[in-house]
């Protein structure tokens, strides 16, 4: 049996534009799911990877001075000295975390640190070049360096201000670019201020007990664990999970509607053919099955195109903006099921309509 000489495949080939539009419709739904979930997952994993390299267990801030998309530089660096005197604290180092529009999609962040203390506490080392000293010097991690930012080059951080890249550090930790604390204080006009103080506890100390002690000694501030502050994007944005689910539902509706419209049109075009099938003794189930098979084949092609589209779009967006995409099998499976089930559901009404056509009227259809 020639598979291309069946009603399902021959109808798809006979109406290439309609088939292509249907395939693209399903593909867009699938690609939307893959791109958004891939971006959320990629950014979340990237944040977690980088935060896992921050070795200081406790973060000391003013209340409400840090969020996922913003931070204030309102904590006095004088707290560093007082924190170092608390029992169980091995080291404390001030950090300015500044978030600014990236110029592309979304926001970017930069950190101002006292390099020697910060790198020692977090086990970071310069693998190329040297550490920043002057106010116009910056060090970056390998990921940022890979985007055509070599040592000796310059990088634009705040508007038109150019910074010299003096070194590349590893492993990646927190923001991908780091200035000296003094440099960022000057730029932000916040002398003797920082966003938070990163605290490393002694190996013998219990971080929970140390955090309690800090809260008692310096009340009215915020004492948090690093692991909680740099949690995943999903948990940092409570509505993200809902957003992703709504997106998946929308993609399903889009897929179903596109297939429904396409199949509705094709049933109208093929009314006489449905009449012939009925005259030949095709049952309702057979007619529904034929139309569903066609819809599922179109949806399967849409899935394939959608996955390729998502991979291509992810690659291009990453190249142009640095946003990270990580596609998961579970979401791919979800997108696949959504595409196929959406297509099958979308085709069901036109299929039932076809199955219930009056054969004599259908045969007389012009």
């Amino acid at each position, binding site marked *: *049996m*020639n598979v291309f*000489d*069946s*009603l399902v495949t*021959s*109808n798809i*080939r*006979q109406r290439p534009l309609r088939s292509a539009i249907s395939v693209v419709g399903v593909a867009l739904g699938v690609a939307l799911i893959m791109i958004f979930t891939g971006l959320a997952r990629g950014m979340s994993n990237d944040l977690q990877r980088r935060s896992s390299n921050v070795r200081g267990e406790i973060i000391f801030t003013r209340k409400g001075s840090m969020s996922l998309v913003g931070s204030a530089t309102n904590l006095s660096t004088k707290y560093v000295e007082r924190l170092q005197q608390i029992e169980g604290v091995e080291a404390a180092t001030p950090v300015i975390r500044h978030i600014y529009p990236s110029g592309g999609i979304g926001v970017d962040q930069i950190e101002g640190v006292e390099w020697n203390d910060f790198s020692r506490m977090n086990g970071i080392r310069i693998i190329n070049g040297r550490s920043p000293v002057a106010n116009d010097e910056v060090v970056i991690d390998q990921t940022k360096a890979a985007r055509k930012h070599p040592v000796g080059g310059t990088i634009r951080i705040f508007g038109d201000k150019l910074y010299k890249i003096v070194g590349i550090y590893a492993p990646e930790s927190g923001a991908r670019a780091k200035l000296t604390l003094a440099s960022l204080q000057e730029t932000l006009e916040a002398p003797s201020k920082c966003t938070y103080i990163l605290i490393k506890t002694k190996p013998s100390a219990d971080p929970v007990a140390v955090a309690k002690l800090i809260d008692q000694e310096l009340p009215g501030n915020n004492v948090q664990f690093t692991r909680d502050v740099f949690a995943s994007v999903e948990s940092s944005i409570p509505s993200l999970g809902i957003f992703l689910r709504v997106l998946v539902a929308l993609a399903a509706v889009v897929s179903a509607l596109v297939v429904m419209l396409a199949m509705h049109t094709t049933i109208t075009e093929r009314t*006489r*053919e449905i009449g*012939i*099938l*009925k*005259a*030949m*003794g*095709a*049952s*309702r189930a*057979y007619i529904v099955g034929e139309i569903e098979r066609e819809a599922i084949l179109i949806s399967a092609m849409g899935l394939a195109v959608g996955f390729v589209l998502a991979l291509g779009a992810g690659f291009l967006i990453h190249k142009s903006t640095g946003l990270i995409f990580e596609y998961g099998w579970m979401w791919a499976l979800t997108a696949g099921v959504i595409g196929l089930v959406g297509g099958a559901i979308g085709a069901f009404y036109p299929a039932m309509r076809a199955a219930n056509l009056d*054969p*004599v009227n259908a*045969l007389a259809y012009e």
Partner: protein
Amino acid sequence: MAAAATTGKKVAILKAEKLEKTYRVGKVDVPALRGVSLEVEAGEFVAVMGPSGCGKSTMLHLLGGLLTPTKGRIVIDGEDLTAATDAKRTDIRRRKIGFVFQRFNLFPTLTADGNLRLAERIHGGNGSGDPERRREVLRLLRLEDKMHHKPLELSGGEQQRVALARAVITQPALVLADEPTGNLDSESSAIVLNMFQELNRRFNQTIIMITHNPEAAAACGRIIQMRDGHIVAG
């Protein structure tokens, strides 16, 4: 093929009793058949003639189970079509009836072979059919070298021969043909009629054919004349 035909005993393959069909057009009842009774024996080749609007096509649609009568009874090869549900009627049509239409009604996207296989698939489920029967039908209808052509690549006569092959490939008890030569020139008509006769003779195929053409009717063993919803002769 119907069991009755294979025994050689003359048994009615079709029995229609007091068939009435009234269409409702707006608020008006329009009678199309006014009490038609008909019996066709296995292996008969019957022509149905009559002026336009006399009820020929309505009768054919009733006999094929595409319509239900307002009154009366139809029994095909022992199965009561009028007592059957819609699904059962479809099943009887699938097993016992083959249609040939004036406009051929082939699937334009399928080859001749694809059209035949579709009929076999609907009839038997797997589309394989009886290879011997298939070869014989194709040889008889001189279609062996046309099987990979699509309908638009075939002449009208060839398309009607494919439609005829599609109707008989599943060995129906009854073939219902609605003006099968109405869209053909006289040469193609003669060829198609000849093939109807061949099928009738070779396979003892029972055929009921609506026609306006007296020459076509002359090719049949019996002619039924209809007028105003009644059978007036035959």
